[in-house]
Every structure is written in structure tokens, then in C-alpha cells.
């Protein structure tokens, strides 16, 4: 099955296809980007990933097929326990034809990631550019900064067609996040710039927001530190914020 070209990628020849070959005993940390696909096959097979506290070659954990030299990575099967896919990627494309583990697309600068299943926590954390689309749901902490860092998402675009968890776009400084379904609590906390759109319902919105815009289609709870305006809310007053929270028209 792995050899079939992926729909929607007509014209492009597919390149590196990976499938898990074992039921993982612990999660795998595979910091791989599409650039890997352009490397010689032997090098790819020997590429080291963390399997718990062991460094193992990729081929020990995954079936790999190489079909060209383009920077496209196709992940088939259940990758929900594989973390850090597309970390810091700058170009190329990753297509995940199932679920994906945490930190997918963290620090991403360019290129495109498509997740056909669900994504875990920290999707697109501290993302700077590029595009991520998730057909299913995502976990918590979409596009957030890692603990202690002062800036979240700076650029790029994340689209989630399903629901998202808590903490979305914290300390966001730029870029766009769109959640087509519902979202959890704490959307755009300490947001400085950029745009978040939630089509469904969500919990608290905009705590300590300094700037940027949040649009919500369903119900939400605005933090009691926003001034009501004709078309929404502006705040957070406690940080002299000029952030806007509006109903999605």
C-alpha cells in the first residue's frame, strides 16, 4: 500500500515512506524533516532516533521505502507515539496519513505538514513560518512557547479541522491559528499579535492579552478584564492591552 501515490499530490513522485514496524515499548523521538528524504537511502536507514534511552537506526523501528529525491516525507500508519516530526523544518513537505505524536512541527520555519488523523500536544510550538493542517483533533498547547520562553508562535499558519485542547496560541506574536471545531480553555493568553479563529465553543479567552485578534463562532468566556465595545471586547485592561475578542460573523 505504501507504494501508492498519495491523492492530492498528483504529478509529484513520492519519496520517503515510513511505517512503524514494531509496537513501540516506549515512545520514539524522531527529529526528522523532509530534508532526510533527499539523502542517500543507506544514510536514511541509519539515521538515528531516540527510542527511550537508546539511539537506534530508523530502519530498526520503521519500514522505509525511497522513491525519489524530492523533499517529501510520507508517514503511514500510527505515528501517535512518534514525537518531534518536522522539528525546525524549513522546507519540503510532511504528510502523515494517520495520527501523530507530540511536538509535531515545533520551531517550524517553512514548508508544509499535513496530518490526516489527530495530532498530540505542542503542535507547531514556537512556530515561525510554514503551514500545518490537521484533519482530525489536536491536543493541548497548540503553537505555545515552551516553559520559560517569552514568545509563542511568530508566523505561519495552523489549521485544525477538528477540535483542539487547552492552551492555544499563548504569547503568540504573529501568524494565524484556525480551529474549525471547539477549543478548550485559555485561548490567546498573553497574546501580543496575530490572529486566532475558533469556529466552535471554547473556555476562557484573552487573559492578559496585549494585542492581536481572536474570533469565536460559538460560546466562550471572556476574562473579566475586557471592556465591551460595539463589536466585541477590548483588553486586557490589567496589561493596558489592545487585544480584540470578537464574535465570528
Amino acid at each position, binding site marked *: 500500500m505504501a507504494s501508492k501515490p498519495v491523492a492530492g499530490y498528483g504529478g509529484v513522485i513520492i519519496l520517503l515512506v515510513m511505517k512503524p514496524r514494531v509496537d513501540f515499548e516506549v515512545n520514539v523521538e524522531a527529529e526528522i524533516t523532509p530534508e532526510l528524504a533527499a539523502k542517500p537511502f543507506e544514510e536514511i536507514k541509519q539515521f538515528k532516533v531516540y527510542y*527511550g534511552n537508546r539511539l537506534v537506526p530508523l530502519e530498526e523501528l520503521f519500514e522505509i521505502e525511497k522513491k525519489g529525491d524530492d523533499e517529501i516525507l510520507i508517514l503511514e500508519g500510527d505515528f501517535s507515539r512518534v514525537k518531534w516530526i518536522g522539528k525546525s523544518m524549513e522546507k519540503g513537505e510532511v504528510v502523515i496519513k494517520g495520527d501523530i505524536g507530540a511536538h509535531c512541527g515545533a520551531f517550524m520555519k517553512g514548508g508544509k505538514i499535513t496530518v490526516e488523523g489527530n495530532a498530540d500536544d505542542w503542535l507547531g510550538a514556537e512556530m515561525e513560518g510554514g503551514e500545518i493542517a490537521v484533519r482530525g483533533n489536536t491536543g493541548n498547547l497548540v503553537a505555545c512557547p515552551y516553559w520559560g520562553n517569552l514568545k509563542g508562535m511568530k508566523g505561519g499558519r495552523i489549521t485544525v479541522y477538528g477540535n483542539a485542547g487547552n492552551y492555544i496560541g499563548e504569547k503568540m506574536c504573529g501568524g494565524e491559528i484556525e480551529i474549525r471545531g471547539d477549543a478548550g480553555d485559555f485561548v490567546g493568553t498573553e497574546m501580543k499579535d496575530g490572529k486566532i479563529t475558533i469556529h466552535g465553543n471554547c473556555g476562557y479567552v484573552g487573559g492578559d492579552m496585549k494585542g492581536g485578534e481572536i474570533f469565536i463562532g460559538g460560546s466562550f468566556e471572556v*476574562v*473579566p478584564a*475586557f471592556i465591551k465595545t460595539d463589536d466585541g471586547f477590548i483588553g486586557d485592561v*490589567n496589561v493596558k492591552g489592545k487585544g480584540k475578542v470578537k464574535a465570528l460573523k
Partner: protein
Amino acid sequence: MRNAICTFCGNACDDIEFDGFVGKNLCPLGEAKFSAKQRIEGPVVNGERVSYEEAIDRAVEILVNAKRPLLYGFASTVNEAIRLGVILAEKLGGIYDQCSSVCHAPSTLAMIEEGIPGGTLGQAKNRADVVVFWGCNPVEAHPRHPSRYSVMAKGFLTKGRQYRHVIVVDVRKTATAYLATEFYQVKPGYDYAIFSALRSIINGHEDAVPDEVGGVSREKLKEFADILVNGKYGVIFYGLGLTHTRGSDRSVENLVKLVQTLNRHTRYIIQPMRGHFNVVGASAVAAWEAGYEYAIDFSRGHSRFFPSEFTAVEALIRRDCDAALIIASDPAAHFPKRAVERLTEIPVIQIDPHPNITTLIADIVIPSALVGIEAEGTIYRMDGIPLRVKKFKETEYWSDYEILKLMLDKVIRLKGE
């Protein structure tokens, strides 16, 4: 033994008199702790009694072969043992996590965001004229707190109860609420909003506050803000009512922001009501040895901090550990069902003085000496003040320190480092 230190809760009361059987100055919790009770008789491997050395050998074998062993617990032992636990996790390439991760870890996350304007319990005793208990119930969880440190304590500058305004904020009228001057009942999950509302009022933006927030009217909130701002020295104690509920770390962070604001008008400090007598040590030792307080993964040979993945509960639910060493704790009793299920699937080694629910699922059980009675060492009270717990009873049981020392020596030998 005079001035013994009670090894139950984060109060770490240091005025206990104990003759080996009966203790004075103990609260009901401490009394239970100091009373004789069931012990694990000896080291057991798969149901069979063995020597300490053999049990440790077998445990080390499991841990060294694991791809990511979880080392969890530590809140009820001494720093000297905790330090060995952190080093052991590093040498094994495993996870170090401790009981904070199911109680006050959100406070650490809040501190990472905004810091903690804190102080010692003596500041409440000696100076505080406003004492707030938010989402905590010391009468049941820290019974001597009100008399030793907060509500009734006779301090150097604040001489007793009549000089203090005592406020309780909770979702239910707890026993502590009956000690209060004011009680504010809030709807579960609305603490975050109430902190923001109080900040808005104190910052002069009453207009941003709706008529009612989390079940408390704007008028009541204004009155509350007034009491806070008019205190000369205030202490806000908070508990699991914040960290275990909706918003957890964000709620504590917002409380910190409220306290930052209050410090622009008067003086305020906050203090988490930490549970176990040395849960603070389990955080602090890890911080100086590895740079982080909990949820530390050493799989790459050095420390990494990912609380949403490497707390014990998350590592178990995510099936990201394949063996567990449990020290001085009972995760089978206190973890959510799904985490406990994973615990029943992997090899579990337990070190504890008492049989508990984790004992039922442990493959290897290694009994230990009772800290503060049969073993000495350093512990940190809830405000971080270090105290030395004493040994006043001889025992055949090995201390946590001795058990972990032999484990570490064996691991280092096996790893050839």
C-alpha cells in the same frame, strides 16, 4: 526525644515530644503517623522473601534493561536519598518525577511564568494582618497551621487572632471557613476569572467587571479588594483547590499577578500549602542536581523538562516508560485510573515502610526505615525552611539512602561508567 519533627505534612512541626510510643503536640494526622502500624516485613521478589542485596540486584537488572524507567515518589523521604534518586535517574537514562506532579506542580509552572512573591511561615505569624486561605483547608490537611503559623499565632508584631483579618475562599464551606472573618464561596472553576476581576478593580477598571463573576457579586468583589489593599502585610495561602481544578497553573499564575499588583500598594506574599513533609525537598534537590524540579527525562544523558509528557501520570498514560521504581509514595492509590492501569502492565519496584496499594501491584518490594523515627536526614518545610529529622529508634530496616546507594553503585558498575 524533645523537638522532634513531625514527618507528615508540609507544616513539619518541630516541637514534637516522643518517647517511642506516645507523642505530644501531635495533631490527629501526626498522631497516626507516629503510632505503630503495619510494616512490610522484608524484601520480596515476585512473592518470595529474599535478602536486601538480592532484591536490589533484581531491581537493578530491571532498571538497567528498561528503555525508560520511571523513578517516582520521593516526597516522603530525606534529601540525601532524593539526591541519590536524581543521580540514579540520570545514570539510568530514565525519568525523575515526584509527588509535586500530582499536587503543586502547577505552582512551579506559575513560578516559571511570573515568579513567586513569597516568604516564610514566620512572616504570617509575626507580621500578617490579613491572612487569606484560597482553595485550601488547613484544618483538615495541615491541622496545626492556624495555631502555629497563621490564624491564631502570636507573633512579634501581630500579637494574635484579633489583629488579623482572616478570609477563606472556597467552593464549599470547609472547616477552615468557620475560622474566617469573611468567607467567599465561588463556583468551581472560576478562580481564574475572580483573580482577573480583583486585578481589574485594584487597577481602577471596575468597568471591566460584570455584575457577577464565578458566583460572587461585583459589590462583594469590591469589598474583598478593599480588604486586601488595606492590609499592611498580607499572606495568601492557596492549595489544591487551585492547582487541581480548571486552569490550574494559569490560575496560580493569575494569583501571582494579583499579588504583584497588591505589592504596588502594600505588602503581600503567597505560599502554597504543600502536602507531604518533604515534597519541597523533592523539588529543590532535583533543581540543583538537574536544573528542574520534576518531570525530568534523562533519556539523552542530560536533563530535559517536559511537564506535559514526563510527569509520572503522563508518562504512564502515554506508555512512555517501561519500568517503574516507586519510592516513599503510593501512586496506585493517588493516580488516575488510566495511569494505574499502565502501572499494572510494567515491572514495578517499590521502596516503602508500609504496605499500601502499590504493594499489591509491585514485583519487587523493598521495605525501608521510617524517616524521622528510624532514619535521619534533611527535609524542607512547605516554605522551604530546611530541618533535620532525627533518628531515635534502632531498626533492622535499611534506610532509603542505604537502599538507593547500593542500587546506584550497582548501576554504575553495570553501566561501566
